[in-house]
């Protein structure tokens, strides 16, 4: 117990005997009740909680300090990040409105409109001239696009296109923008396949 006394804990959460997802669900709720900078100790017996706790901390931005195993109990230590260091819901920062996109296209700007909706959605209606690569295929098909092209990514409401922009950025595409709100706000010329 000596090593544990060195760790200042503000809240201890008992998740012993609980199977996933409960340790993480409870941790999430507990972290909401403490102040930024405070530390929560989560005691769990589910071995899988270790990797999941690390993964959850990574996506939420809270700080995973470490885990101590004592007599079959895993004690995970999580420090709540302050709101400015915790990752807000990740959003791609470069955006343009549907009106802005329309203006650029009308002005003859060289811009690729990438539609990341499913093929059926694209078939019924899409921005005139848009290229279709469903989001689920973008990882493997990104090579069909030129990485220095100016790309406006569009979906129905801006969520999938946001993820698509992030993916393209990771793949080295430098000039990518998310079109908001998406096809729901598009009043310009459209085409369809059927």
């Amino acid at each position, binding site marked *: 117990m000596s090593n544990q006394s060195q760790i200042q804990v503000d809240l201890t959460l008992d998740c012993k005997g609980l*199977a*996933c*997802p*409960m340790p*993480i*669900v409870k941790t*999430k709720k507990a972290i909401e009740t403490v102040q930024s900078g405070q530390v929560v100790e989560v005691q769990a017996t589910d*071995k*899988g909680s270790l*990797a*999941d706790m*690390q*993964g*959850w901390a990574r*996506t939420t931005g809270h700080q995973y300090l470490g885990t101590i195993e004592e007599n079959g109990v895993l004690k995970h230590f999580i420090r709540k990040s302050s709101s400015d260091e915790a990752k807000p819901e990740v959003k791609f920062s470069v955006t343009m409105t549907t009106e802005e996109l329309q203006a650029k296209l009308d002005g003859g700007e060289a811009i690729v409109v990438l539609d990341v909706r*499913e093929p*059926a959605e694209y078939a019924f209606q899409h921005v005139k001239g848009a290229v279709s690569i469903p*989001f*689920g295929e973008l990882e493997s098909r990104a090579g069909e696009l030129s990485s220095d092209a100016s790309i406006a990514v569009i979906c129905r409401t801006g*969520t*999938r296109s946001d*993820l698509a922009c992030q993916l393209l950025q990771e793949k080295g595409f430098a000039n990518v923008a998310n079109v908001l709100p998406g096809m729901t706000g598009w009043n310009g010329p459209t085409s369809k396949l059927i």
Partner: protein
Amino acid sequence: MTTNAYNPMTAKEVTRFILDKKPLFILDVRNETDYADWRIEGETVQSINIPYFDLLEGVEAAIERMPAEGQVLVVCAKEGSSKFVAEQLAETGRTDVFYLEGGMKAWSEYLEPVKVADLQGGGELYQFVRIGKGCLSYMVLSDGEAATIDTLRITDVFEQFAAEKKAEIKHTIDTHLHADHISGGRQLAEKVGATYWLPPKDAGEVTFEYAALNDANEITVGGTKIKIQALYSPGHTIGSTSFIVDDRYLLSGDILFVESIGRPDLAGLAEDWVGDLRNTLYSRYKELSEELIVLPAHFGKITELGEGGKVSARLGDLFAHNPGLNIHDEDEFRRTVTENLPQHPNSYQQIRQTNMGKIAPTADEQREMEIGPNRCAVHDK
């Protein structure tokens, strides 16, 4: 009021989708590392990975990436998180939502029995396909007697199968000391009063009694009708032994697979065993009839599953097409089987210790040790 239901799907049912080549969409909610390590695969299976802890606020991110219709199977490690996510999906009004009963643990333990052949002497030969992990076991049945080969830890499956066939298990035989999975051979033999056979050269450190399996040993099943001839074939381990069943089927253990060959490094002696592996594959096997049907102890890729899930190939065809049997230069062979090998199987050291009887993990610990793919072939990635 409508109830938004979601239902369990068993590992057996998932196996049917794969073997019948019916499309199945899988949302795997385990963490990214586990998904990258090992997941449900099939020619008609499409899967995406979003950890359940990224879906605590809602499942919209998952719905966006799913096909609009059709069955969706949510998968996690043990079941709990997949139910949690499946319930949320059902609440959005989505129908045809399932979760994998028992999670990937159940998937790892499911065995599909596939009949290989009727034997000349009137018996039958079955292959047990552990689809989630790529292991293959065998059962020879004849005249009310049975022998199992490379028996897996899930021994009740073999016991029940033999009971249904009204056969008494007389022999459990391991081709070698396994490093990727825990053998059920000893446990099953003890339970049903059978003889457990192990090649003595792999059994130097074992802590239990066994029957020594030597080159040219013959084991008979059902009187004298079905012969299992042992053929010493070192290389994957120093004791590795193959069997010729009923003069027709070559059970090659972890020496020769359909699309690859065994790796010599799992006992830490790759350099020492390369020569044995080469000699077995390029000389000893060469002397056998090309008409033998090779039945290995593993498959590497789901595409190796043939009719009904059966994994097999004619020896002559393997000599023509298996890349591991077509490396003519000895130095190149040495490099192929000792360098750039795939990762070791998870927990392989502990698994070897368990199979030697040196440690006795609990059932849960054994299950945990076996999680993941087998990686016994040189071409597994």
